[in-house]
């Protein structure tokens, strides 16, 4: 029996995966989403060759601004970095799109805050270009 299927329209795209859940107490000391201290120490994400972009969403408990810095490299040598400021009142939600200039194997997502507060967040990765 011949089995065929007529498909009209574009195939699905924009595959997304959850990479990190994090409940983090942040302050002026740089720390990554996993809670490790420092700017260019251990990576937050490894084996990321398949991901083209990321979205970090979450909720901040305090009024102080946040600064998300992303450093990119192979996990030992960090070759590029960029930062995104996040403002909002206590209890507000945020969404940050992160599109590295090129694909790297490893990333470190670092957060600092002007005042101590709790940040609950989720990082997702896109395997295709979506923005």
């Amino acid at each position, binding site marked *: 029996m011949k089995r065929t299927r*007529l498909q009209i329209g574009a195939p699905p795209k924009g595959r997304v995966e959850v990479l990190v859940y994090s409940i983090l107490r942040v302050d002026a000391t740089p720390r990554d989403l996993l809670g490790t201290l420092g700017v260019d120490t251990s990576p937050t994400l490894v084996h990321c060759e398949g991901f083209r972009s990321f979205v970090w969403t979450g909720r901040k408990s305090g009024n102080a601004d946040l600064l998300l810095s992303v450093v990119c490299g192979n996990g030992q040598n960090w070759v590029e970095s960029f930062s995104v400021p996040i403002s909002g009142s206590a209890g507000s939600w945020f969404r940050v799109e992160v599109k590295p200039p090129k694909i790297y194997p490893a990333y470190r997502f670092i957060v600092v805050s002007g005042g101590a507060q709790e940040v609950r967040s989720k990082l997702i990765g896109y395997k295709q270009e979506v923005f």
Partner: protein
Amino acid sequence: MKLPFENRGISRRELLKGMGAAAVGMMGWLIARPAEAMTAESEAELLQIGSPGAETLLTSMLTVNNQERDLLNSTNSQSPTLDRCLPYGRVIWSGRKAGSADIQYRVLARSTDPSGNPLGDGWYLVMQGTISGPAQSWFRVEFAQGNWDQYRVEVASAVSQTVFNRIVGVR
């Protein structure tokens, strides 16, 4: 002369009907051919109209007035309209309004933890706007952002009217 789809037992009328359905945004509907038109060679075939990744997430009929409520008629501001929506990169709300009054809407979103609980109270404002049109007119709103876990779609109208809603998610 028969067109290729007619060789599979699909009439021109059926195809045009399906194309019309797709044109008004009714993605994801599977239109199976009538049993009497099926042949042994092609009994496993389906004609799929629209994007193959589209799924209906909600259908509702709602009386909207000047009190903000979501598309499930909930006035509890913490109650989500849609849950488990992370896979959907596009979310499209379409419908029909019975009255001529404008409808104000807000699309809110938030993320959840591995257990499906929100990371916290409150919502992120994805978009807000006004749906205008005469009585019995259709509308379509595509959410400005996809891949959130939960959405709350709130509506209000200065004059009470019935609104028919459908939301589809596209992976």
